[in-house]
């Protein structure tokens, strides 16, 4: 006894769409799921072009997909992650999401009718749940990243968290009368590097160089990404002389060895500004940053690839006149 | 009188398949070669009436053998049997003097048609 009696009820109850077109892309079959979701009756759609029945289809793309199925007699696939839907249908989920349309996973299969004529059968699976779930996950991850402490690319601390730590360390140093120094460094001619090697190249350089720098620091130091190509290091329990040594070491670590990116050998260097905590009061950390920044500016001005320390008493006014 | 036949293919299975596809009525003395170099050695040293030739072989491929046969003016029929069946390839081997082109896996009925057509059986 054949199983034909099964297929009717199953196709009717299936919570996936089934659609069949012939070689000319004329509709041959549309199951109940699709009929209901699209408010199209099979009786009126049969024999008509698929692209006339469903007005909003990505026609060129779909024709190409169908063509490959027909000619190669191999299946073809479409995932909601690459293309949210093929047929624009409203979804029936109670959950709110950014889209009111059903997310779909499609499988296109070669099919021959009894006379041997080639057809394509498209199975449409409702993937809206997965779509909605992924959106929630994305939002959660974004929030997490914001509350996170680390800069995704370089694994250095992100600016916000680093500055918080700087503030705390400054307070601690003041309280216990311990020396504290700050290094601010900046990749020389980074814009040119990006232009020449692309952002991927720039990123590679940042990743490698920050790894090198990290290797030279102690667990008690705070290494953060201050800006695009700007970084800061808080050296606890360190006076200016010691900080200068660290700065020189870092400077050399960067300039002495090129970074390999694809087949390129990229030479780079940094300019470093160093300052020791001097001020008192609640805004001491801001003063410290300002001083290190001034020293960094001088390092750039004096030719880059070098370390310059902040000279006590120097002010911006003096810089301008020099 | 038995016709000397050379089956040339680097695959043992393929050689067996060709052998098995030959009709019972075909009176043939079968020799085999696993690559183009071996094939030419045989072809140059004795009379071979018919060659079944694969295209993709190490040392010297089917095209190389066809070219050598043409150049040496060797007198034998060549039927190319290959996995690669594109029109371009078929055209090429025909220009180099191949009698016919069969694609793998060999269909014994089609082979008989060809052999009859050229009066080999």
């Amino acid at each position: 006894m054949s199983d034909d009696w099964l297929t009717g009820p199953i196709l009717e109850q299936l919570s996936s769409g089934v659609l069949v077109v012939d070689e000319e892309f004329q509709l041959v079959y549309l199951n109940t799921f699709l009929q209901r979701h699209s408010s199209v009756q099979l009786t009126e759609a049969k024999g008509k072009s698929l692209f006339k029945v469903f007005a909003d289809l990505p026609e060129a793309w779909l024709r190409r997909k169908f063509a490959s199925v027909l000619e190669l007699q191999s299946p073809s696939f479409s995932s909601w992650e690459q293309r949210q839907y093929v047929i624009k249908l409203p979804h029936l989920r109670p959950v709110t999401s950014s889209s009111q349309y059903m997310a779909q996973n499609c499988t296109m299969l070669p099919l021959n009718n009894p006379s041997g004529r080639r057809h394509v059968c498209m199975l449409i699976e409702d993937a809206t749940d997965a779509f909605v779930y992924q959106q929630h996950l994305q939002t959660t991850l974004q929030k997490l990243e914001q509350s996170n402490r680390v800069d995704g690319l370089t694994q250095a601390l992100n600016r916000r968290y680093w500055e918080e730590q700087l503030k705390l360390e400054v307070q601690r140093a003041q309280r216990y009368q311990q020396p504290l120094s700050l290094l601010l460094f900046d990749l020389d001619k980074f814009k040119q590097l990006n232009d020449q090697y692309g952002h991927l190249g720039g990123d590679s350089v940042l990743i490698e160089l920050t790894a090198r720098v990290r290797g030279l620091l102690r667990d008690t130091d705070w290494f953060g990404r201050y800006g695009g190509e700007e970084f800061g290091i808080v050296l606890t329990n360190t006076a200016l002389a010691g900080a200068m040594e660290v700065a020189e070491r870092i400077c050399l670590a960067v300039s002495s060895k090129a970074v390999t990116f694809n087949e390129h050998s990229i030479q780079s260097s940094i300019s470093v500004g160093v300052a020791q905590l001097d001020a008192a009061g609640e805004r001491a950390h801001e003063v410290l940053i300002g001083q290190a920044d001034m020293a960094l500016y001088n390092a750039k001005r004096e030719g880059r690839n070098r370390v310059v320390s902040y000279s006590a008493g120097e002010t911006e006014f003096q810089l301008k006149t020099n | 009188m038995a016709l000397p036949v050379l089956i040339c293919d680097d695959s043992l299975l393929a050689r067996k398949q060709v052998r098995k596809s030959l009709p019972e009525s075909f009176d043939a003395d079968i020799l085999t070669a696993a690559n183009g170099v071996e094939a030419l050695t045989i072809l140059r040293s004795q009379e071979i009436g018919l060659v079944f030739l694969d295209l993709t072989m190490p040392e010297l491929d089917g095209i190389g053998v066809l070219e050598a046969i043409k150049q040496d003016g060797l007198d034998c029929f060549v039927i190319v049997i290959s996995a690669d069946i594109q029109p371009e390839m078929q055209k090429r081997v025909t220009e180099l003097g191949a009698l016919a082109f069969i694609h793998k896996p060999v269909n014994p009925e089609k082979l008989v048609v060809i052999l009859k057509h050229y009066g080999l059986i």
Partner: protein
Amino acid sequence: MSTVFSEEQRDCLQELINVAMGLASDKLARFLNTFVHIQVPAIELVNSAQIPAQFEAQYSSAEAALVSQGFLGNDGLRGEAIVLYQLENAHRIAALLGYDTDNASELEMLTDISSILTTTFLNGLAEQIDNSLSYSAPRVLSSRHNNMTEALIETACHWELALRVDISYQLIHHSFNCDMLLLIPGEAVLNIQQILDRIVEEY
């Protein structure tokens, strides 16, 4: 566990693959309207654990891609087919398939090409052994953003044996290389050996 195919089984498998490639290349040639030459110099049976090391050198740059697709047939024939290639190569064939190679559709392009290469080849293989296969949707395991080796290790460890098929596709104006790995579980290997023996015996 090391599973070794006998010389005869190997030869048989190699021939089946050659023919499958011939059938696939013919289909592709007609579809792409160009001359396609597919070369399969040799197949290699390796222990899955060895795979990552082998591919690391060749594909270690960030510009490689890895697409996986499961296949399932009768008589316990099943496994995972992985296609590995350099992204710049993928762009060439994508252009041939009529894709606009902007980044948004890169994933789509990768899965389509891989699916076509995998299914035409495996269908050709199945045809010869009187089997038929169904496929799962192709997934990108790794592309320009991810680490290829990790993905490969994670996948390979689920399977016992790997059949490495180095495929070189040559189209009339371009040529590009990609590697295909067929990962097969232990039980399927036994089935395949039986199938090969049966074929060898037929002749």
